């Protein structure tokens, strides 16, 4: 079984530039999560999808962050414009159902200059 695939692995941009991350979950996993992980911290949920519906986006900074999950499979997370404080690892995870074990991708390490 292929795992969760994320791209790119690394991204370096200047502040105020836009950036996008892509995630392909495990086949058949209807629940998809985007997390942000700062150095020395645990992952913090940004948004959770059940199929194509965002069921929990309370932690997503909506002034600059957006996400979509068209057709309930792949998902993209966008930041526009990026700020220095957005430097972090952005992790995507998926699970077979709500509340089940989550499978994480390798993440995208974002650095803002």
């Amino acid at each position, binding site marked *: 079984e292929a795992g969760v695939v994320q791209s790119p692995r690394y991204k370096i941009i200047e502040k105020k530039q836009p950036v996008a991350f892509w995630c392909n979950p495990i086949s058949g996993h209807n629940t998809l999560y985007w997390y942000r992980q700062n150095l020395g*911290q*645990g992952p913090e949920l940004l948004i*959770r999808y*059940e199929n194509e519906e965002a069921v929990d986006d309370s932690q997503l900074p909506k002034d600059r962050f957006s996400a979509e999950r068209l057709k309930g499979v792949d998902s993209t997370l966008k930041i526009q414009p990026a700020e220095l404080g957005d430097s972090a690892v952005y992790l995507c995870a998926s699970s077979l159902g709500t509340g*089940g074990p989550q499978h994480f*991708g390798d993440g995208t390490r974002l650095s803002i200059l």
Partner: protein
Amino acid sequence: GQQVMQIPQYQHVQEGEDFTTYCNSSTTLSNIQWYKQRPGGHPVFLIQLVKSGEVKKQKRLTFQFGEAKKNSSLHITATQTTDVGTYFCAEQAGGTSYGKLTFGQGTILTVHP
């Protein structure tokens, strides 16, 4: 909201010594999950505890869920260098928030050969 307290933040042990990390919540939990993240890697699911007082074992790892479902622990017997990494508990709330995981800060385990 949920508060996830995980201690200790760091633990250095000699190979062969035991290790324990503790997780405490301010609220009664639906279930708790444990993840391991190797340096430079992504979180990997270890186990999920659901029942009050539940104890589960995986080889040298023993997981416990408190009777009140507000605390949990992970104990490793006779650590090995392969146990190095950060161990996170992740608490899952019940009710309308079911499906949302709140991660602890993690315990960074270093094993000296």
